[in-house]
């Protein structure tokens, strides 16, 4: 790891005002103070349940949403509030892949035009011409370059997602924000696309911020994982640490919910009671305390900081983290392992 991270996020916050007529009646605290770094060539997984602010974070990273507070530094430059012209050179290094392959391609443009769009918008003339570059990209993502003149409605979901990936790669970015790139696809296609992304990441040295709610996919793809709950990161660390030695109760509950085909019955499953609290009025102190079986008085009054325990890379925001030695395996719940293996087997 180098000293200078590719992406440095500090205190990133997004509040959406709730309006009734002209009055502002509240704030949806979608994302509330995120800190994380992404090194060049590294893949960071961002996991959490629906509505925890994963997608909002991804959109702020590529500046589709304006952050309310905090800072985003990309390659040493602060881009938190940079204008369109300032961003232009950075856009080439920072791209996004979208969740829905049916909505993310313009139905009136040919595949060639879609993939060439970033080049044309930025006035880039690659050697050999735009068409050659586009066909090269299509080949790179495993599509037939002859399909240059076809329209998106002639492709399947997996092929469309490949087109979206080709478009993101057109500018040779250094970092790609992948916003649930496979959750709209069939499981067999998911494995293909994830493996394509992994190969591209290895071959081109890309860094990824991989947003997903599928823990098995994240385990397969990401070197580091950040777990989010209600707009905060509750735990961040290396893949092995998160999946095998989770310290935060929420991470444990999340991992225990992975279905496991090797076991029958609900054994080992941690059931959280209640719903996620509304981000309009999040709980005081630790946001997870309303559903945590370990919650005590201190959790309501004092917010736990995201601090590394025992000097490792793994940081946990909890007053009562799990002991480092207490692995899930020891409790007879090899959930994470089995789910990770499923993807490995499906991949060609």
């Amino acid at each position: 790891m180098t000293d200078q991270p590719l992406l440095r996020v500090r205190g990133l916050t997004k509040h959406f005002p709730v309006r009734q007529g002209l009055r502002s009646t509240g704030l949806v605290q979608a994302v509330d103070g995120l800190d994380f770094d992404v090194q060049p060539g590294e893949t960071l997984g961002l996991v959490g349940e629906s509505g925890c602010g994963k997608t909002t974070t991804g959109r702020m990273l590529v500046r589709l949403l304006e952050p309310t507070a905090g800072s985003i530094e990309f390659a040493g430059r602060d881009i938190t509030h940079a204008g369109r012209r300032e961003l232009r050179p950075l856009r080439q290094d920072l791209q996004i892949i979208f969740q829905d392959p049916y909505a993310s391609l313009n139905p009136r443009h040919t595949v060639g035009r879609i993939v060439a769009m970033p080049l044309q918008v930025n006035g880039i003339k690659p050697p050999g011409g735009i068409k050659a570059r586009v066909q090269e990209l299509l080949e790179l993502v495993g599509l037939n370059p002859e399909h240059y003149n076809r329209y998106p409605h002639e492709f399947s979901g997996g092929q469309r997602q490949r087109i979206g990936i080709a478009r993101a790669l057109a500018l040779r970015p250094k970092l790609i924000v992948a916003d649930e790139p496979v959750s709209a696809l069939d499981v067999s296609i998911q494995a293909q696309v994830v493996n394509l992304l992994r190969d591209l990441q290895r071959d081109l040295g890309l860094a990824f911020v991989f947003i997903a709610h599928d823990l098995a996919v994240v385990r397969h793809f990401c070197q580091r994982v950040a777990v989010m709950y209600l707009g905060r990161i509750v735990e961040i660390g290396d893949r092995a640490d998160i999946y095998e030695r989770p310290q935060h109760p929420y991470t444990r509950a999340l991992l225990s919910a992975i279905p496991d085909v090797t076991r029958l019955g609900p054994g080992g499953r941690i059931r959280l009671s209640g719903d996620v609290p509304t981000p309009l009025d999040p709980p005081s102190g630790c946001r997870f305390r309303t559903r945590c079986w370990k919650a005590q008085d201190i959790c309501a009054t004092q917010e736990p900081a995201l601090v590394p325990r025992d000097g490792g890379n793994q940081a946990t925001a909890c007053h009562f983290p799990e002991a480092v030695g207490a692995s899930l395996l020891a409790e007879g719940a090899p959930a994470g392992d089995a789910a990770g293996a499923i993807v490995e087997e499906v991949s060609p």
Partner: protein
Amino acid sequence: MSLSPVEGVALAEIESSADAGGPAVKGVVGRSPGQLAWLRLRRDRTAMVSGVLLIFFMVLGLAAPLIEMVYGIGPREQFQNLLDGFGMPLGYAGGVTGEHWFGLEPGLGRDIFIRLIYGLRTSLFIAFAAALITATIGVVLGALAGYLGGWLDAVINWITDLTLAMPFLIIALALTPTITLRFYGERGQVSSAFGVGVLIGVFAIFGWTSTARLVRGQVIALREREFVEAAKASGAGLGHMLFRQLLPNIWAPILVSFSLAVPQFITSEAALSFIGVGLSDETPSFGRMIYRSLDFLQTDPAYVFFPGITIFALVFAFNLFGDALRDALDPKSSR
């Protein structure tokens, strides 16, 4: 209708796969949504019949001077010698002869056929020009309001509401003579081009609101789609967003509203000319002809028949074609 749009698409797909399997070396070419719509339109018999009729009318209008040459009679020539002592045309059905196909006007004795051809040209020119101008204004304002939102949206909406609140007929009645007076004074001879221009201007001021509303709604619906965000994430500017990403997706409703606006402008022009604020008598137009013919409704019914039938057929064909176009462009909405 012979074929449902669904069958049309299926056929199109069969054809395209046949293309791909053929020995042609030109590579795989996909069919754009526009090409698919064109295929559906071609299979719609109503659309084809009304379309051919429209093209026929347009060719007639465009070729008016040519027809005048072949026909040998101009629109302002008078044939007083063919009228009787009361100014009524001699012969049957308003003086229909081999020389004067649709007969003669009572009173002035001008040839009805050539005046109809020139009236067609005037009507179509005014309607198309007005529809083009209103569509352009509507698309630009609607797209800007829908895409940018905020205060600009509020202002444009406010202007739209204001325009919709103004009574078209009363303003047109008040405006047209005032403008004409301002430019030509009390006695000046008003040129026909000026009258046409004033009419187009009046239509342009009032006609853009529906297109603007339509486009604004469509753009708002598209704005949140991910392909728009993808373009934004690549650093696309406003012009690229509006004209490259958004507009190609809303051509269909714009085209339909355009094709339905044209007949509306034809009837409006006729109505305005009828009540006397539109074109002067010098310019051949449907409205003026029908207005003049009303005095002779009992004595010379053939005079009202020809312009009446022509304007009816023209507007009917336009409306049918507009409906068929909508069905072809959006197969989901058809019955």
